[in-house]
């Protein structure tokens, strides 16, 4: 058995002639598993040459809950609470992706109102998740106040979700065939009010953080991923868009009713640094909040009373076969590879979760060499990982 340390001495990067002359040994440092900047229990073993990171090795598995094995013993409805717990910051999006995969195999038609409500909740969840990303990213870089502003707004979304589904974080709201509960007019009015307020707040955030000189110095030109890097590593979501590639499943391979909606895909531009740096990944998220508000307003114009649950058999049995269903989650593309044994089985034969954060963590060893430790923290924060999804 190979020891966990026995992976050979990594090559030292040549920083400049001065560091070459100094005979120094690489220092091995553990960042995590309980480091506040890793957003959970991620342990990154970094080899440093004084302040400069020579090599970073992520060690995963501290939050491994065998979710994929669990699902092989659960019926299709009972999996939804487990899927919730993957990305606990954006649980609605996870549920939606899973529900779509089962519905596709089942051939269920989802009523129009249910689809619209799913888009509504999905986009609200995207705003909530990006607010969390905004707050914690500023916190990583040493600014505490934006975190409080972000949570004030996020709380309003969570309150709405609590009223409509009954839970604040792990909703179990999007079911196979539709959604659990209907939204009342009063709640929809509050969504409208929230959208107006959020637009004003977003301007405030830009003044407070995005255009702050200290923030720009910390994030611009740091942790650059080129588009080719993103393709090589399979990165999706804000990481890919921050690198300047216009790719969004909602637009390019529209699922649900997204083809009816009019919105833009924000991509990274060389505004203060270079395309693909931390600042661009951050600003893409903030621009997506505005796009989500646009979508929510269109949903509200389209909403009509109707049924919210399609026809689903009491015991769900899927046909033999497999499916790979992708959906655009706040952190990137969630892919679910669902294999069913045939109509005799009440449980899936295999459910593989392709989580976006797992892919993004694999980019860290590529980004780290040559960075300062503080810049490395900024890079880890900018890809916005949730460890529940990385370790599954």
């Amino acid at each position: 058995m190979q020891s966990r340390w026995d992976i050979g001495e990594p090559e030292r990067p040549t920083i400049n002639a001065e560091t070459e002359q100094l005979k120094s040994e690489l220092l091995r440092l553990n960042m995590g598993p309980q480091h506040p900047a890793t957003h959970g229990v991620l342990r990154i073993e970094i080899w440093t040459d004084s302040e400069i990171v020579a090599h970073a090795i992520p060690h995963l598995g501290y939050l491994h809950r065998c979710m994929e094995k669990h699902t092989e013993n659960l019926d299709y409805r009972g999996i939804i609470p487990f899927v919730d717990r993957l990305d606990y910051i954006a649980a609605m999006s996870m549920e939606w992706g899973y529900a779509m995969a089962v519905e596709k195999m089942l051939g269920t038609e989802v009523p129009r109102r249910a689809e619209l409500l799913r888009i509504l909740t999905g986009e609200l969840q995207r705003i909530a998740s990006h607010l969390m990303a905004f707050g914690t990213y500023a916190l990583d870089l040493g600014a505490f106040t934006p975190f409080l502003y972000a949570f004030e707004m996020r709380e309003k979304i969570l309150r709405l979700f609590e009223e409509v589904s009954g839970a604040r974080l792990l909703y179990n709201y999007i079911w196979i065939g539709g959604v659990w509960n209907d939204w009342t007019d009063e709640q929809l009015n509050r969504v409208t009010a929230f959208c107006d307020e959020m637009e004003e707040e977003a301007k405030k955030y830009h003044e407070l953080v995005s255009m702050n000189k200290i923030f720009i110095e910390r994030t611009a030109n740091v942790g650059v991923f080129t588009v080719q890097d993103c393709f090589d590593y399979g990165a999706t979501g804000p990481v890919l868009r921050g690198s300047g590639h216009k790719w969004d499943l909602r637009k390019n391979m529209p699922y649900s009713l997204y083809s009816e909606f009019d919105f833009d895909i924000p991509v990274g531009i060389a505004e203060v640094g270079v395309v693909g740096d931390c600042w661009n990944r951050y600003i893409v998220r903030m621009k997506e909040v505005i796009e989500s508000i646009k979508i929510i307003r269109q949903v509200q114009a389209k909403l009509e009373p109707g049924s919210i649950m399609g026809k689903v058999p009491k015991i769900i049995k899927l046909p033999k076969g497999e499916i790979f269903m992708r959906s655009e989650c706040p952190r990137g593309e969630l892919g679910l590879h669902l294999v069913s044994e045939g109509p005799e089985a009440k449980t899936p034969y295999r459910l593989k979760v392709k989580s976006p954060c797992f892919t993004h963590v694999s980019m860290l060893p590529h980004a780290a060499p040559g960075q300062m430790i503080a810049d490395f923290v900024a890079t880890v924060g900018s890809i916005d990982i949730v460890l529940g999804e990385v370790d599954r």
Partner: protein
Amino acid sequence: MNTQTHETSSVRDYFSALYDGVTTTIKGMWITFRYVWGVKSVSIEYPEVREVLPERARMRLFNDSQNCISCTQCAMACPVDCIYIASEKKPEGTEIKKTSNGQPIRLTLTQFVIDTALCCYCGLCTTVCPTECLTHSHDYEFSQYTIDAMKYDYLAPDVMAWRDRIVKS
């Protein structure tokens, strides 16, 4: 692959960066400073002030054992298997009672235990209940010293004290 550009900084650049830093920070400080007056606080002083929970809030489970028909649908639907039900047939000739919505109770419930420590509060059990006797109550303060104390036996007499508070009819 990192392009850490160290620009050749002149005195002019130095001062312009300094200026930018100070002005943008003052701008941010001003936004924060406005919170001194007029902006209502959003936090609440928890033990003294309590938020009113929404109607659908999913807190501790409660089973009204008088209305339960022992159909075990909730135990089947539970994804973490935390509901334990046992029942036996009523002897012949006993009177068959009816639940509040008119379903006949044909079995005698002998055990109805929910392990609240295992429960994931997903709400799937309450949706399948045909008599709506299993519901989520609004109690959220029920910490215990031992894990065993988290097992609630809904046939025990002390549950009756809750029942009057939770079951509204």
